[in-house]
C-alpha cells in the first residue's frame, strides 16, 4: 500500500505508529518582508490551516530521535509513502 494513515515511514527506523512521533510545525513558506512586524505577527499567530496537502515535520521521539519531513492530506490523514524524506547532513 502506498498510502498510510496515522502511520509514518521513518526512513531510518521503518513504519511506526504516529504516537511514536512529535508533531512539528507546518513550515511557513518564506514571504517577502514588507512590514516586518506584521509578518512576524502573522507567522506567530495566524495559520493557513490548509484543508488539503501540507508539508510538515515529525520528530521520531521513540526511535532515531531525528526530524523527518512528509506530506500529509489534512482532509484524510493520508501520507503517501514517497513523500517522506529524511534530513540531509
Amino acid at each position: 500500500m502506498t498510502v498510510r494513515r496515522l502511520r509514518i515511514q521513518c526512513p531510518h527506523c521503518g513504519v511506526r505508529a504516529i504516537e511514536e512521533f512529535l508533531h512539528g510545525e507546518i513550515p511557513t513558506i518564506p514571504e517577502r518582508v514588507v512590514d516586518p512586524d506584521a509578518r512576524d505577527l502573522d507567522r506567530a499567530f495566524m495559520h493557513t490551516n490548509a484543508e488539503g496537502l501540507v508539508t510538515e515535520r515529525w520528530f521520531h521521539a521513540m526511535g532515531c530521535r531525528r526530524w523527518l519531513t512528509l506530506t500529509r492530506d489534512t482532509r484524510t490523514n493520508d501520507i503517501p509513502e514517497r513523500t517522506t524524506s529524511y534530513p540531509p547532513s
Partner: protein
Amino acid sequence: MNEFVERLVDLRWPDHVRPSYDVVIIGGGGHGLATAYYLATRHGITNVAVIEKGYIGSGNSGRNTTIIRANYGIPEAVRFYQHSLEMYGQLEQETGRDLMHATKGLLWIAHSEAGVRQERARAEINTAFGSRTEYVDVKTISEICPQLDMTGQGVWPIYGASYHPAGASARHDRVVWAYAEGAMRLGVHVHQRTTVTGFLRDGDRVTGVQTTAGPIGGGLVVSAVGGHVTTLASMVGLRLPIRTHQLQAFVTNRYAQAFGPIVASSGLGVYVSQTAKGEMLVGAEVDRAPAYAYDSGHSFLRSCAFRSIALLPFLRDLRVLRQWTGVCDMSTDYSPVMGFTGVPNLLVTTGWGTWGFKAIPAGGEQMAALIATGRTPPLIAPFALERFANDRTMADRGSAGTH
C-alpha cells in the same frame, strides 16, 4: 415509544430564499442559531438567514460531550462561562423546551502535588469571579463519586480534586433545535443543505455570500462555522489564529443511572460522564496534528479506554457502542475569538475548540448584542481578534486541551 423522542420542537423551515437579509450567519450550529435567536428575541432583528451546509447541528454541536462548566483559569473566561452556565440554567424555561439539562457536579482530579496546586488555583480563581469551585480531599471525592479507584490502580493515586457543583450537561441536539425553532418562529430563515462558496464584495466590504442556492446579500455577515473557519475566511483573504484538530469520544451501551458527576483528570487526560440515556461517555484531549478527517482512531479508543478504567474500574466490563470524531477550531491561545475581523461587515465567532457547547447561550447573546449595537459588549471584549496584535492573548490553563 421512548422518553427521548422529541415531542415539543416544531421546526418551520422557510420555503424560499430572500435575495438579501440584514444579517447572514454562516453555520447552523449552536453558536450560529443562538446568535440568530438572540437577534430576534432580544433586538427584534428578524430579517436574518442562517446558512448551513449540512443539517442543523451536524457539526461540532452534534459531536461534543455536552458538558457545561465555568471552572476556567482566567477571570475573563470564568465570567463569560459562568454567565453562559447561568443562561443554560434558564434556557428550558425561556424556550419551553425539554433540553434534558441536568446539574451533576464536576470533579477535576489531581494525581500529584503539581496537580493539587493546579486544582487549588482553579478553585481560587473560580470563587473570586462568582463560579463556585472548591478544593476537596480524598474523603469527599469518595463520597461524591464512590466508583473512583482512589489508588488509580496503584499508578495514578488520587490526591485531591476541584469540585464544581454547577457542572452540568444538556442534550446537545435539543439545544440546537430549541434555538432554531425559536429563531424561525420569529421569522429567521434557516437554510439547510446550502453551502457558502464565496463572498460578495464591494471593494473591501463584504456585502453577502455566494452559495449553492445563489447569491444572498447581507448587511452583515457572521461566520459561525467550526473546523472549516480558516478555509471560509481565506475566501476574503482573512487569516485567523486557528488550527483545526480532531477531537474524539466514545460511548458505551446504556446502563442504569448510577453515576452522578462528571469526572475529569488532567493527569490521565480523560473525562467521563453519563448521558441521560445511561450511556457512559468518555472523551480525551484533541489529536495533536491538525486535521479535518472524521476518521475515528484505534489508538484513541485503546488508550482512552485504558486510562478511564484506571480511574473508574467498573468501566472495564462495559461494552463500547460507538466512536465519533469532530473537527475543532482551536485558537492559538486556547480562547475563543469573537467580534470584528478587520474586513468591513464580516464578523466571526470561532476558536471554540473543544469547549464551544457550554458557551452557546452566552456566545450567541453577546454576538447578537454586538451585531445589534455595533459595539463590543464588555463580557467578550477581551476575546476580540485584535488581542493578538495588541499582545493581549488570553492564555488559559483552565481550558487547554480539555473538554
